């Protein structure tokens, strides 16, 4: 909805509202499938430029092999297809497109990198990253550290926040290149065919990633398929398209950015806003409408959209008063002022926790050593208690830092007779379902702040926060901080 549509065909007094979009302009003698008119200086790249590997139309009458096929395509323009003259915004052009492209070039890799890091945070070596089999499509595996404790909070928060903030920029970038979708002929060579196919990866990829991500953070699983799997492989399709697009378009982007001065654009008011020079890609309209927005105004509009999204979303990650500004997303909500009134991820009801199993009959089972150790909650409370301020952060990008008190996992490992376990398997009272169990790496068991928490903010955990006991480990994704813990098996 963003996209700074200073749009096609506006502000033309002489045209009635019912005027067809493809109305002949002042130069009415032009053919309807208009291309850059003859005699207009087109900023063409010399086709023999060795740095230029881009598939670009070199002229109306030049077709690659098989020549006859492409000519025949060119001759069969579908009726009703908007002509390029329907696109009349005087702001469209390679410079503006390149500004948006440049912004995405520096920001999207950060979204991709944080996403790939979060895959590793889930513990692929313990076979609990989703999707399970990703072949070579992953960052080098490493054991996810427990320090700094805010590591996952930052990587996941950045991934989600930046992804949301870039929505207006992506929409604007797509708006700026929209005439290319409707150019006819769409193809003049095999090169253009392949390049258009590769655009499916990048356009489909970015919209797919943003749509699934945006729905997922709002717990709206309209898509039906597994979010993690689709979002992960969709990201690889997008990244592939992105890399090849950058490789092909980078010289064009640099040249276009140099074609105008950003500083001068930022000083150019509406009254002096002129279209860019006609380009070979046909982004600049041959019959521009009078501007209704300056170029700096368009940039401010997109930037303002991003700022608006930022103000309304970052609060879910950074918390504090900023959380109150996250008005339209789930994790901006307040639960109240009590010690247990912080963000709940999956309620006890949703996890089908039977209250009778969490009462005095509850026992914690520790295994892996010489024999199984059973502890009741009173015994756990008499053990050495450790308190730590740790964030709990989730895949939806939200996080909240609380003061947790409980028994160190390392002490429980000692008690079980496995002082230096290679890993540990934590199981919940929750019967089945995703994330009712989790594996912890050695560093996640032995970290001095890794706890089986019994209390939060000085009081017992509430049922929704995992009473009678839950795991909390620094920098561990929230879904692996198992609630309603039933047993821990320490593996040597």
């Amino acid at each position: 909805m963003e996209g700074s549509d200073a749009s096609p065909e506006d502000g033309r007094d002489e045209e009635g509202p019912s005027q067809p979009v493809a109305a002949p302009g002042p130069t009415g003698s032009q053919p309807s499938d208009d291309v850059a008119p003859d005699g207009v200086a087109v900023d063409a790249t010399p086709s023999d430029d060795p740095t230029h590997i881009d598939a670009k139309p070199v002229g109306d009458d030049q077709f690659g092999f098989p020549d006859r096929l492409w000519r025949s395509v060119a001759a069969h323009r579908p009726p009703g297809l908007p002509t390029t003259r329907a696109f009349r915004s005087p702001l469209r052009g390679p410079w503006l497109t390149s500004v948006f492209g440049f912004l995405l070039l520096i920001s999207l890799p950060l979204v991709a990198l944080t996403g790939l890091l979060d895959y590793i945070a889930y513990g692929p070596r313990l076979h609990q990253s989703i999707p399970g089999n990703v072949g070579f499509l992953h960052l080098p595996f490493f054991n996810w550290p427990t320090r700094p404790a805010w590591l996952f909070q930052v990587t996941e928060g950045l991934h989600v926040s930046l992804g949301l903030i870039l929505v207006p920029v992506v929409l604007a970038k797509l708006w700026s290149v929209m005439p290319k979708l409707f150019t006819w002929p769409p193809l003049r060579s095999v090169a253009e065919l392949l390049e258009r196919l590769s655009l499916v990866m990048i356009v489909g990829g970015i919209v797919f990633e943003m749509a699934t991500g945006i729905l997922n953070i709002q717990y709206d699983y309209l898509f039906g398929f597994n979010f993690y799997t689709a979002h992960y492989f969709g990201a690889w399709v997008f990244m592939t398209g992105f890399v090849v697009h950058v490789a092909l378009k980078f010289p064009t982007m640099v040249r276009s950015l140099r074609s105008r001065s950003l500083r001068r654009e930022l000083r150019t008011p509406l009254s002096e806003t002129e279209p860019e020079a006609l380009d070979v890609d046909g982004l600049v309209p041959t019959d521009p409408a009078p501007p209704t927005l300056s170029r700096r105004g368009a940039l401010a509009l997109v930037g303002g959209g991003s700022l608006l999204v930022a103000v309304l979303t970052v609060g879910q990650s950074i918390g504090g008063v900023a959380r109150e500004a996250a008005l339209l997303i789930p994790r901006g909500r307040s639960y109240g002022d009590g010690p247990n009134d912080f963000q709940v991820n999956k309620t006890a009801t949703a996890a089908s926790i039977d209250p009778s199993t969490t009462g005095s009959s509850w026992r914690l089972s520790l295994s892996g050593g010489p024999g199984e150790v059973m502890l009741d909650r009173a015994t756990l409370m008499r053990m050495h208690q450790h308190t730590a301020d740790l964030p709990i952060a989730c895949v939806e990008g939200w996080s909240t830092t609380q003061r947790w008190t409980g028994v160190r996992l390392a002490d429980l490992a000692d008690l079980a007779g496995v002082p230096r376990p290679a890993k540990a398997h934590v199981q919940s009272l929750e019967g089945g379902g995703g994330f009712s169990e989790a594996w912890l790496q050695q560093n996640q068991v032995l970290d001095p702040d890794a706890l089986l928490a019994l209390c939060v903010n000085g009081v017992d955990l509430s049922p929704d926060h995992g009473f009678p006991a839950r795991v909390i480990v620094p920098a561990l994704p929230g879904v692996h901080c198992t609630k309603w813990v039933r047993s821990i098996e320490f593996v040597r």
Partner: protein
Amino acid sequence: MSTTVARAKHLYGAHPLHLLSLLASFALVGYAISLLGVHSLWNDRVWWQSIIVWFLGAIVLHDLVLFPFYALADRSLGAGWRAVTGRAPEANLSVSPRNYLRVPVMASGLLLLMFFPGIIRQGSASYLRATGLTQQPFLGRWLLLTGTFFAVSAIAYGAATLRERRRVDGPMTDPDGPSSEEEPASEHLGTDEGGMTW
């Protein structure tokens, strides 16, 4: 440039490196799909909940639904204004209201586009399971934000109109007034929450 490369360019339509990089990218995508499993692209029971439908549908929805919708909406802003007043928004007012309408509509529309699940209470069951809360507040909050955008825009528009009137009237009382140095009021930077009003 060698004649071989020139010939390849003529036949293929671009430098051979173009072909190589695109083929490499297609192979990589093929590899990703093979890891996912081709069968996973398609959902036999509910066809529209298929990954492939969402992936390609994303392009269709953006390019052939969302873009035409907002472009037409923007176009009808000018056309509608002309139909009612017989003139373009720029013609009979000292300051064009066009951007003062566009900006709040865009801001509100962007929020609806991104946060519609809460606003229309879609996925309420999974929302309740995850958070223990309902989506009750979101529609009201979105409407309040929308109202705020329009109110701020109205104030900015009123201020711009006043400034423009003073600028036009200015020279009559003060022939040496600074009007020539001022920017046109329609370009003045307002700072509402939805971005800048230019």
